C-alpha cells in the first residue's frame, strides 16, 4: 500500500476534519490574494498621482514673456525635476473646453483672459516640490496660487500603509490559525490511529515511515487550500475587473493578466505547502512518540 493511498485513505476516513483544515487554508489564501490585488490597485492609484504634475503654480495676469521664461528657468534649475509644463492662457482655455465639451453653458462665457497661465511641475523626488512650493509662495508679485498635491499623496500613502499593515496582521493571524488547525488535526488523527502506528512500528516501520502519511496529509491541505484560495479569489477579482476599473477611471486598478499571476500562484502553492508541511511535521513529531 503506497503512502499516497494511505494518506488519501486517512483523509476519506475523517472527511469533516479534513474539510476544516482545507477551508482554513483556503480562506487564509483567499484573504491573502484579496489584499495582494488591493495593494496592487492602491499602488496604481498612488503612482498615478505621483506621476501627475504634483505642483501647479498659477501665474498672475499680465506677466511679460521674459518673466515667464525666468520662472521656467528657475524651475528647471532644481534637481530631480521630471517634467515642467507651461500651460498658457490659450492652452488652459482649450483644456477647459475639452473637459466641459458636454456642457456648452460652462464654456460659452469663458475666454482665455480669465484663465490663469500656469506651470505644472513633477519631480522624481517629492522633497524638491516642497522646496519649490515654499520658494514660490514668497513670490507674491508673480504667483497667484500654488496647488500642491502633497496632501492627496500623503493621505493615499497613509491609507496604503494602513491597509498594508492590517493585511500583514490579518494574514499572519490566518496563517497562524491554519497552522494550528493542521497541527491539532494531525495530532487528533495520530491519536485516533495510534494502534495502526504501533502495529506498523512492530512490523518494522521506521518512525519516518509512520509519520509520512500525516506529513503528506498536511502538504495536501496546504497545496490544495492555497491553490483554490488563489483560483477563487482570482476568478472573483477578474470578473469584477471592468466594474472596478470603471470606478477608478482613468486609473487601471486591476491590470490584465501578466506573468505575475502564474508566478503568484506558484509562490502561494509553495507557501501553502510550507504551512501544511511545517504544521504536520511538528504535529507528527509532537504526537508520534512510540
Amino acid at each position, binding site marked *: 500500500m503506497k503512502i499516497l493511498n494511505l494518506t488519501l*485513505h486517512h483523509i476519506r476516513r475523517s472527511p469533516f476534519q479534513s474539510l476544516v483544515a482545507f477551508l482554513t487554508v483556503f480562506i487564509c489564501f483567499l484573504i491573502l490574494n484579496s489584499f495582494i490585488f488591493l495593494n496592487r490597485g492602491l499602488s496604481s492609484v498612488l503612482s498615478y498621482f505621483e506621476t501627475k504634475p504634483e505642483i501647479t503654480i498659477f501665474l498672475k495676469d499680465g506677466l511679460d514673456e521674459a518673466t515667464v521664461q525666468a520662472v521656467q528657468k528657475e524651475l528647471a534649475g532644481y534637481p530631480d525635476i521630471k517634467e515642467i509644463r507651461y500651460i498658457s492662457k490659450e492652452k488652459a482655455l482649450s483644456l477647459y473646453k475639452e473637459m466641459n465639451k458636454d456642457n456648452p453653458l460652462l464654456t460659452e462665457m469663458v475666454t482665455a483672459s480669465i484663465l490663469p497661465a500656469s506651470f505644472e511641475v513633477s519631480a522624481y523626488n517629492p522633497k524638491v516640490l516642497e522646496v519649490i512650493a515654499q520658494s514660490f509662495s514668497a513670490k507674491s508679485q508673480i504667483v497667484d496660487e500654488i496647488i500642491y498635491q502633497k496632501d492627496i499623496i500623503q493621505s493615499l500613502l497613509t491609507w496604503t500603509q494602513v491597509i498594508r499593515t492590517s493585511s500583514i496582521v490579518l494574514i499572519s493571524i490566518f496563517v497562524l490559525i491554519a497552522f494550528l488547525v493542521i497541527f491539532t488535526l494531525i495530532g487528533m488523527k495520530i491519536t485516533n490511529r495510534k494502534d495502526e502506528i504501533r502495529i506498523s512500528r512492530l512490523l518494522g*516501520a521506521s518512525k519516518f515511515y509512520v509519520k509520512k502519511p500525516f506529513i503528506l496529509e498536511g502538504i495536501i491541505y496546504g497545496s490544495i487550500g492555497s491553490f483554490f484560495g488563489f483560483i477563487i479569489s482570482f476568478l472573483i477579482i477578474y470578473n469584477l475587473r471592468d466594474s472596478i476599473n470603471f470606478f477608478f477611471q482613468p486609473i487601471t486598478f486591476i491590470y490584465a493578466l501578466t506573468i505575475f499571476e502564474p508566478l503568484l500562484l506558484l509562490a502561494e502553492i509553495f507557501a501553502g505547502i510550507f504551512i501544511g508541511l511545517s504544521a504536520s511535521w511538528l504535529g507528527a513529531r509532537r504526537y508520534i512518540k512510540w
Partner: protein
Amino acid sequence: MEIVFDKVTKNYGPISVFKDLNLKIEPGDFIFITGPSGSGKSTLIKLILNQIKPNSGDILVDGKALNHLKKKNEIDKIRRKIGVIFQDYQLINDLTIEENIALILDIVNYPNAKRLSRIDEVIKMVKLQHRHFLFPSQLSGGELQRASLARALSIEPEVILADEPTGNLDPTNAWNLIKILQNINKKYKTTIIMTTHNMDFIESLDKKVIKLGKSEHENT
C-alpha cells in the same frame, strides 16, 4: 538469525516474570514455548521484538544487543526480518486483509513487481482466497488468525514469532497452520518460535520446547 537471552530478568512491578533467563535459539530452529498463563510466554515474544525492555541482562538478535543498539533505526531493520503472528492478531481494522499484507510488504520494501503475486500466494497458502477483500471486523477469529499468518509469511522472514497462533482455530485449521509453519521451517530454514498451551502439538512433534514456570522460569 540467532537469538540469545543472556541472564535476562524481567519484572512487572513486584511480579518477577524471568530471573536470569539464559536461552539460545539457533537459525532454523522450531521451538515451542509453553507454560501456564502469566508465565511470560508473550513477554518473551515482546522482548525479542524490543516492544518491552528487560530489567537486566542482554537480548542478542543476529549478534546485536537490543538494549545497546547504536542507531535508532536498527531495531526497525531487525523487525523487518521477523514475521509476527500476534495473539490478538494486530491487524489494522480499516484496511482490508489484502491491504494489511500490502502494508507490511511496503514497510519491508518488498520488490514492487512481485507484491501482487506474493499477496496472492500467501492468501492461497492460508486459504483466504474468498476473504482477502474483507476488513478484519468481517472475519471470524480463525480467519483473522490465518490473515495474521499470511501477513507474517508474506515478507519471507528469517524468524516467525507466533504468539498462541492456534488459540482461535478449530483442530483441523490448527493442524493446517502447524503444517504450514513446519513447511516454511523445513523449506526455507526459517526459525519458528511459537508459544502454545496445546500439549498435542508438543507431544506429537519432535521439536525443542522451552517450558516457563509461573513467576520463576524453568528452562528445559
